């Protein structure tokens, strides 16, 4: 269980995390999404015990990870640019982690090496970006972490490796009740993998929710009206976004599919359909509400 209470982190005058509070249950895969500079990586680093919170707290099983080896031994953090000790091979890195992490599993390491088909005797610095990331993932999973913190982990991985990674992570979560937090801009991949998402923007959390609930709670409506009713007619709907093109109206509306369809049908459309939003569409809609949209940026 991860509990975040009024967590604040500042870099000089910049507030990277501004009193955020939420919790992440054990055994979940939590997707961290948000605009650039929203504080996702800062949050992961604070969670990993790298950064000390300026105020508030972040607790892993009720223990603050900063300067706490016991808490840190249960987690592994792969940063957006994973670091490897210069001149080291994957085996060297494995030996390095094996000394430090009490739950290191050599068997798991070897299994993963064969799954990812990496030569553990090759120098990591000579590997491609994707292979380096695979190396980091192998080491991370071999430490048998309870909490796996991943920052842009899909970057550089080919589609097959992405699928493999998602499969391995899902397996570990179901088998060992591992909790995974993934910060990524690749919402398509998160949509497949995560059960929870948190949306960060400007150091705050816009929402954190169960992904299915989220997707069910917001829908896209396409309807044709002749004539087009006044916009006030749509007020009973909890509209996030409206776009009218002649007789076609596109809406993003909060609520269940049935509720929305009933209210639209009351306006006698020629044609109406309610479609679920992809995570990317949810992201764009919610960010528009927060004032982060293309029109705002361009203007």
């Amino acid at each position, binding site marked *: 269980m991860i509990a975040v209470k009024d967590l604040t982190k500042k870099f000089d005058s910049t507030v990277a995390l501004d009193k955020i509070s939420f919790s992440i249950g054990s055994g979940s895969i939590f997707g961290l999404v948000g605009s650039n500079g929203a504080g996702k990586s800062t949050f992961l680093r604070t969670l*990993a*015990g790298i950064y000390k919170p300026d105020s508030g707290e972040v607790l892993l099983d009720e223990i603050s990870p900063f300067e706490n080896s016991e808490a840190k031994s249960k987690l592994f953090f792969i940063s957006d640019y994973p670091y490897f000790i210069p001149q080291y091979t994957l085996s060297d890195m494995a030996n390095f982690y094996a000394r430090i992490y009490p739950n290191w599993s050599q068997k798991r390491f070897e299994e993963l090496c064969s799954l990812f088909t990496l030569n553990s005797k090759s120098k990591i610095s000579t590997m491609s970006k994707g292979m380096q990331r695979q190396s980091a993932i192998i080491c991370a999973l071999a430490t048998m972490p309870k909490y796996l913190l991943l920052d842009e982990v899909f970057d550089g991985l080919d589609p097959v490796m992405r699928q493999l990674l998602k499969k391995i992570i899902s397996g570990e979560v179901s088998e060992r009740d591992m909790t995974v937090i993934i910060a990524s801009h690749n919402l398509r991949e998160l949509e497949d993998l995560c059960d929870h998402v948190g949306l960060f923007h400007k150091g705050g959390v816009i929402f954190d929710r169960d992904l299915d609930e989220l997707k069910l709670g917001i829908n896209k409506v396409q309807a044709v009206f002749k004539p087009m009713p006044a916009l006030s007619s749509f007020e009973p709907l909890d509209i996030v976004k409206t776009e009218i093109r002649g007789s076609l109206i596109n809406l993003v509306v909060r609520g269940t599919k049935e509720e929305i369809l009933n209210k639209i049908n009351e306006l006698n459309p020629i044609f109406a359909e309610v479609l679920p939003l992809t995570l990317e569409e949810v992201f764009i809609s919610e960010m528009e509400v927060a004032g982060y949209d293309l029109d705002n940026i361009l203007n």
Partner: protein
Amino acid sequence: MTSTTSSISKKKELKETYLWALKKHKGISALLALLMFMALPMLLIMIMPNLKTRVYPAIARDESTKYFIERIAELNAFFVVPLILIFTILFSALLFGYMHQKRSVDLFHSLPVGRTPMMLGRLLAGFTLITAPVLLNFAITFIVGACYSVDISQCYGIVSYMLWIILISTASLIFMALMAVCTGTTFDMIISALGVNLGYPLFIFLGNYLISSILPGYSNQVDIGSLILTALSPFAAAFMPLMRANEFNSGIINQSFFIWWLIFSIILLAAAITLYNRRKSECAETGFAFPLPKTIIRFLITAVSGLGIGLALGESDEPINFFIGLISGSLAAHIVVEAVYSRGFKKLKKSFVYYGLFLAVFFVAYTIFVTGCFGYDIKVPQAEEVESIQVEGRYINSDDFNLHDKDGRTIGHITPTIKDSKNIKTITDSHKKAVLQKRSKKFPYCFDSDLLYNDFTIIYKLKNGKTLKRSYPCNIYDTQNYTNSPTDNPTDYNNLILEIKKLNEFKISGNSAFYINAEDIKSINTDNNNNEKSFSPDEKTKELFLKAWQQDILDGRTKNMLIEMESPLYYIAVEYKNPIKNNKLKEFVFGNNYNGEIYLQPNTTSVYADTKVSELIKELGWDK
């Protein structure tokens, strides 16, 4: 129970960090061992046969030992210490450079290893990686020595060199660790370390030089090799005791260096660990994690450049030149340091607050010294407060009056000492007159290059147990033109030293001739126009000679202040029977604090015409 578990965990973390760092960098340690082998044992292997077969074919064992120790001191100072320091910087960059990259900080600070064990483990690894090659090579050095008939039991000096190198390399490593903690990049770490190591000794040296040239009587002049000069600079300190050891030819490194650097290393270690625990990980790749080192280094470099250029231009005793040099030098240095640390000029404007602070500190200090430092310049004790007065100086204390132990180490000196109350009153009165005369000429003081010469020092031992020490220049004779005539340009303190030198107590207490009996004289060697003769007279003649010699000294008819007053007829060297059996000398110099034997060098002096000694030499026929 929790604390026990935590303690075990910390120990394990420290052990694993140590072993990992050791394994990671063992190759570089091996390289250090190889280079050190080339710099010390290998060179000794090449040098020692030369000593036996070419330089001194019939060399004795003790001379071989001495030669061996001296060569090691030289090789240490010129090759081993620089090599060790270079590798210390290299190791510190390798061991602590991880703090300076965001990516590596992500890795190391997310590991289940506390910061204290991480720092200590790496420091211990660094210590081992440097110490192992040092121990190995000194062991080989001893084997080389044994192969060339060196008396290894006499080589405690080499052990002290080795211990010194281990201690100072450890101190340097901890110092570098502290710099690594305080800075955000490895570049800043290295330039900050170099900045302190160069800046501090220069600051002390130039500051001392400035005070010496302004404040009359200032007697704490820092000499090369003194502890204070390098007290905060391990890199500079590394060389100092080695140089002094060679200088004194004793082979033993001064204990004060060991004690200070042991204490200072502990302070540095505590500071490094405390600050590392407070250091923000996000400081990586930024300028500084803590602003204090930057402020100190900028102050040191600014002050050193200002004082250096100011004093160079102010050599002509023109204060205005000094101030022009001070302002221009310090301002230029401030801008350069700020530009280097801030990677540009963006923060320059704000930084001028610190430059203003430097100027304020300087002008306050300058004002204090030109106004006599709260009466330091005229402070002379009342005669009744004084127990004794010692007088030292380059024209007063001959090396002939040094006392040695059986190994030739200097253990003391026959220093003229005034205890008679009447004589004390004479000196304090003359001293007061001299300092007031100096003040009356020009006050506030300004640059006076004469003051840089500490020709003589008066040490008042007060009845309350305190000591008051003042040093002054004197130029009694025109030594510049070798005319042996009184100078036309006397200093303000010439009369003072002349008054002191007139006192019989001064003459008696400061010359070995008054501490021996006739039977202590072994031989009297005369030199008349390179016609050297040696005489071993009977006891009666020795008595006559000693009496005549002592009378000439009291008459002021011997070499005065080590400068010839007139052309001598002869030079004589009185050789003593060592060790000196007469306890008078031991008691005078050491009181009851020394029980060992004392050895005196021959007392050399000049014999002028119409003196008691010249008459005796004629009478004895030694002039033929």
